[in-house]
């Protein structure tokens, strides 16, 4: 498990270094993820407890951004006067985004990759 953890942290550091050195337009951890994706085919299944470490991180993903989100206390005076506008923007943009994503996929999939039984709601 410790080996897997070291690998994952190592990939993030490597990603961050490469982004810095090559001035790439993505955050370091995202490049780390892409590097991990390239590495995965080379590793045996569940290498060194990789599954366990990954599951732990992903199951608690939401806890990890609590400290940063609490930083909103420093911006309360910026947000409170525009709270209503902000909420309306988020809500409308979300509905538009979800409808477009699902609709484009559904229309294309009907012709190119029809759903199997387990992929359809009854």
């Amino acid at each position, binding site marked *: 498990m410790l080996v897997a953890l070291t690998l994952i942290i190592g990939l993030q550091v490597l990603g961050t270094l490469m982004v810095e050195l090559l001035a790439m337009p993505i955050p370091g951890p995202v490049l780390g993820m892409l590097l991990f994706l390239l590495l995965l085919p080379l590793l045996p299944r569940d290498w060194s407890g990789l599954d366990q470490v990954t599951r732990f991180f992903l199951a608690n*993903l939401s806890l990890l951004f609590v400290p940063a989100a609490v930083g909103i206390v420093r*911006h309360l005076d910026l947000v409170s006067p525009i709270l209503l506008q902000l909420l309306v923007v988020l809500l409308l943009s979300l509905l538009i985004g979800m409808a477009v994503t699902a609709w484009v*996929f559904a229309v294309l999939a009907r012709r190119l990759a029809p759903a199997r039984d387990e*992929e359809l709601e009854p």
Partner: protein
Amino acid sequence: MNIEQLPFWVYLERNPLIWLLVTLAAYVLAQSLYRRARCSAWFNPVATTVCLLVLFLSLTGVPYEDYFAGAQFIHVMLGPAVVCLALPIWQNRRSLRRSLPALLPALLAGSLVSVLSALGLAWLFGLDRSLLLTLVPKSVTAPVAMGIAQDIGGIPELAAVICAVTGIFGAVLALPLMQRLRIRDRRARGLALGVNAHGIGTAAAFQQHSVTGVYSSIGMAINAVLTAVLAGTLLMAWI
């Protein structure tokens, strides 16, 4: 009552570990509340935890910097967590490969529409530049969203909060929206959740069906990369 007058406070205040403890305890409490509410998205544990902690800090007057000195031990794990997203993508590569011709255009359209609709609406409402930039990564999983906001000149903490709000709305509204649109394909439903409501949406997707959950994970992971690239290249040149 002023918390600084309590005798043990002097000791606790100098030990940053107290804020790690408070954060974990608040989250554990929020999680049990969430389960009590039968996993209703309105009781989202992140939202509850952040509200509790913001209230606590405002009432006690503890500066955010002091709080963060302890909470940073949780914060630094964000990067490794993003790296971990590669695993579900790899494990579901077969189903993904088959759906690829529909998946890629839907992902691209979803990412673009999500960013552009937020920018357009915010501009219509007259929100200012730093807020516009903060809205760009609103549908991206929070750890990446904060990185993007930082890179393009938005406000990272606000980005994290905006992501949480977007995720909660998405988790609540996805099912009624998909029913109204008569979309029965679980892959489409999952993708819509992941691309637009990231981790919180993905948790809701797994409650619907495992296929919905997997496609939501993929949507979240690829959207994080796509938005990062979109924001980094297009927006920097444009705004």
